[in-house]
């Protein structure tokens, strides 16, 4: 066997004959361009013809070969094998195993068929039927589904509560039908009953979808917007937050002096290397003022001049995520006007939710109102430091030692929402004395997003509990994240479970702590 053989661990199980599942390990010679399907074919031909797996088109078009590859559901025919990197292949979860990597989708299709997954017309159309181009745009975006069930297997909410939440594939189909003008069924009501407000918008489904279908964005949030119009949404628990934004421009009620009332409009530094605007977001302004101060401290230590526009207001993420579109649009205008007035081209936020909303949702709205995108660029705090300032240009010498074992939780709206995964880890690792432990499933949703924490508390806490298990198992003294929502959620669940001694910080908290050692 050549040296660059791939080591493959495969789940094996025949319920008819095996007491329990087990793993077999095979060595498969590496060839250029090899995909996981090649590996399976090789095993079947050269080692064991009894290995069961499905495949058909081998071109990512039929959805037969979804399986869990190194922890993530993937299409085997579209997953490139990396030379020298071992592979672990297991069947999709949520479905009973027929044999080895073959599962029975009956559970899923039964559920799917219940929603009447077809266009229901009241009368036959004219032939030919005139359908305007504009009318099909929204449907086409979510039409490419190849029913591979990868999303359902990966969705954390399905994992916790499939009975209540029909899952991404089915919500996509409901949206596909609702957005199709020819259909006459009550799709939104069905979606509501099937858990429309259970989705945390964590985008795990998008990440694993071989067709990259943006189910939370193009299906769930669109359906929520219609639900709001039809008076079904938002949920009771979400209403106070929405009303608060309407009333005060903040999604939470004032408890102590807000950050914005404690800081000047501009924080100048000697010989600045850059100039940015700081967007606090609701939680940093009203609840986690210390995190705000810490972020400002870190920026100061790196000689960055900061503007803090006082006219800023909620990014309206709760409104966007729960479908309250009009309010969301008002907030966009308020914020864009306040930020553009400064004439600063870089805006940073340490809230994953705010930064994602400003990056992904704002431009579409300003295109509608101003016919252009905002004239500044939005950065997450860690992204800004690592990519804009440059990790080698950061003030490292003033970072004091912190003796602590830490792990990191990826906020969904930072990792999948903005593609920022390495930067926070890089910053954490800069701090002397820190032992970094990667927890299992660091990118698993904590359950706070999408209005689930406010609207569906028990489900949200169930998701958080799952997250907490991994944090606890990691043995870390502290868990670091980069999102106030995640922070509060994780802190709550650790308290609830009696693990208050595990600290929860945002990246700037930890960095400021290190800088403060060298005052």
């Amino acid at each position: 066997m050549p040296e660059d053989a791939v080591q493959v661990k495969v789940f094996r199980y025949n319920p008819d004959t095996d007491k329990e599942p087990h793993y077999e390990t095979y060595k498969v010679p590496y060839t250029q361009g090899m995909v996981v399907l090649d590996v399976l074919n090789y095993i079947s031909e050269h080692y064991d013809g009894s290995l069961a797996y499905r495949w058909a088109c081998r071109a990512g078009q039929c959805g037969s070969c979804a399986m869990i590859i190194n922890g993530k559901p993937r299409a085997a025919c579209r997953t490139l094998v990396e030379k020298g990197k071992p592979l672990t292949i297991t069947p999709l979860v949520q479905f009973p195993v027929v044999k080895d990597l073959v599962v029975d989708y009956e559970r899923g299709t039964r559920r799917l068929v219940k929603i009447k997954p077809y266009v229901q017309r009241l009368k036959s159309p004219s032939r030919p039927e005139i359908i305007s181009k504009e009318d099909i745009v929204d449907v086409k975006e979510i039409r490419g589904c190849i029913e591979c069930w990868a999303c359902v297997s990966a969705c954390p909410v399905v994992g916790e509560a499939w009975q209540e939440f029909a899952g991404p594939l089915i919500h996509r189909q409901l949206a596909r039908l609702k957005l199709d003008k020819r259909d006459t069924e009550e799709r939104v009501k069905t979606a509501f009953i099937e858990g429309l407000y259970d989705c945390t918008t964590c985008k795990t489904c998008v990440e694993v979808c071989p067709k990259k279908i943006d189910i939370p964005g193009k299906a769930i949030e669109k359906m929520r917007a219609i639900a709001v119009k039809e008076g079904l949404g938002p949920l009771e628990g979400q209403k106070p937050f929405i009303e608060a934004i309407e009333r005060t421009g903040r999604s939470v009620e004032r408890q102590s002096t807000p950050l914005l009332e404690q800081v000047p409009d501009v924080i100048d530094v000697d010989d600045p290397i850059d100039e940015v605007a700081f967007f606090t977001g609701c939680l940093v302004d009203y609840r986690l003022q210390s995190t705000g101060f810490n972020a400002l401290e870190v920026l100061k230590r790196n000689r960055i001049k900061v503007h803090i526009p006082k006219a800023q207001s909620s990014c309206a993420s709760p409104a966007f995520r729960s479908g309250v579109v009009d309010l969301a649009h008002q907030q966009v205008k308020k914020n864009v006007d306040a930020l553009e007035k400064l004439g600063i081209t870089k805006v940073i936020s340490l809230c994953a939710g705010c930064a994602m909303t400003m990056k992904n949702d704002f431009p579409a709205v300003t295109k509608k109102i101003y016919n252009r995108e905002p004239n500044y660029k939005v950065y997450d705090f860690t992204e800004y430091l690592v990519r804009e300032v440059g990790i080698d240009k950061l003030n490292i010498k003033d970072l004091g030692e912190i003796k602590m074992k830490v792990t990191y939780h990826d906020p969904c709206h930072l990792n999948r929402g903005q593609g920022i995964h390495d930067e926070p880890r890089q910053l954490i690792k800069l701090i002397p004395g820190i032992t970094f432990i990667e927890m299992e499933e660091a990118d698993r949703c904590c359950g706070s997003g999408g209005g689930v924490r406010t609207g569906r508390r028990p489900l949200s806490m169930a998701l958080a509990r799952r997250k907490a298990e991994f944090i606890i198992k990691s043995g870390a003294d502290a868990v670091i994240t980069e999102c106030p929502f995640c922070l509060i959620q994780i802190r709550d669940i650790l308290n609830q479970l009696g693990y208050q001694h595990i600290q929860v910080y945002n990246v700037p908290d930890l960095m400021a702590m290190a800088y403060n050692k060298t005052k």
Partner: protein
Amino acid sequence: MTYETIDTDVLVIGAGGAGARAAIEAANHNVMVTLLSKELLGKAHTCMAEGGVNATFANVDPPDNWEVHFKDTIEGGAWINNQKLVEILTREACDRIMDLEEYGAIFDRTPEGKIMQRPFGKQTYRRTCYAADRTGHEMMVTLTEEIRRRDVDVMEEVFVTNLLAKDNQVQGAVGISFKTGSLLVFKAKATILASGGGGRVYKITSNAAQDTGDGYAVAYHAGCRLLDMEMVQFHPTGMVFPESHRGCLVTEGVRGEGGLLKNIKGERFMQRYDAKRMELAGRDVVARANATEILEGRGTEHGGVYLDVTHLPPHIIEERLPTMLEQFLDVGVDIRKEPMEVAPTAHHLMGGVEINENAETTLKGMYAAGEIAGGVHGGNRLGGNALADTQVFGKRAGENAAMFAKKSSMPIIDRSQVEKEANKISTILERKEGIRPHEIKNRLQTLMWDKVGIFRTGQELQEAVQAIEEMKAKDLPRLFVMDKHTRYNKELIETFEIENMLTIAEMIAKAALMREESRGAHFRKDFPKTDNKNWFANIYIQKKMGQMTLTKLPVVVTTLKPEGA
């Protein structure tokens, strides 16, 4: 071996475009319908079609009509199509596309909200309707939605091993359930065969794994007559690596956007084959050019030629060829920076089970539609006609089968045929050593590629026929599987597939040997010219007294005839 017997009115074998459409139509006639497929519902080969489906809506080119489409199809088919069938295809395609839209399909639109149509090879007007580059998928998803609305008994992952036939009448089929491995017997008043193509008999093919051509073999053994089996379409550009992707289609669009074909020396070799049209010459010309370069040693390391778009600006590639960009990125090739490697790939079987205008086969109670049926496409199929074929003849098959079922009583099946299948399974499971099915499969696929491929000669075809006969006699009785349990035993299913593949291979090779001329997709190096005087005809194949017999018969002509015929 015990087995379960399932009674139904109409049994549909195959859930691709044709089978699904047939099942819907049959269900419309208020009969019980059972739909079987090798794979899960919605995943049939039809979902891979990208380009589009032909119908003369004349939405963008007003002069188009069915008669022009008829003529294009027959000229494209090198004149040996059954003209009665072509007339039906071209007259009814529009209606069938409108059916799909009624079910919920979404084809791309013109500014006026009509179905958009694009140009396709060898067609006078723009008549190919499409849904981006996923037309087959759009059709398959729609049909799946519609099947789920209907009362159709869908039985996924059932492999049909044989048809039950007696006295020239089909009474149902025998199958194996993948999930449990148990034998299933289907008793049906009418049976529709919609089992798709058989590209998998070739080493390099664009077809899905399931396209082993079982239908051709089971129909043949049941006594059906088949025709045009020598007509195999090769697409000029398929992927060459990795192994699992070998043959995967690289769309004509790549050359349409300016992709250049080069050999290992960097030479634009099309200069030597068709200096005028270069890369955009006809499919068969380009396929033969690519094959020649490779055969004569000017191919790449992986046995292909280069298809290069690196001279195009990256954004053009990203905008216009997104699927191809992705398809190659998946296997680690960035086509913006490096050339693709491509080679011809077996794409479509024009031949198949003989049907009449009602999609009836030569056996009573048996219907066929889609790629499995022969006669519609003659010696070469136009792009976009296959999908239309599935809908037009799928509907006809469903309708006529339902009507036949309504006036028939439940047949009494011959249980001895079931016993035979059961014995075959146990013999194979019990055999302790021998040849594993994939070994024979690989050998046959290579043989077909080398000797019954793009270029054919009498000598090589002879050799192929002989080799096939030897494999049948020597290898089949030694088939052996590692897995001795019945649950999801892929290898066991493969033993049936390989037996079928040998039957089709024999049909293709023998018909190719008999046709001593070149026509359409069939190219004989020893008879490079088209011979309308002797070969304006179809070759029919039927099992008679256990023997494969080939007969040359006149083409069914209604209006058009080639020169010299």
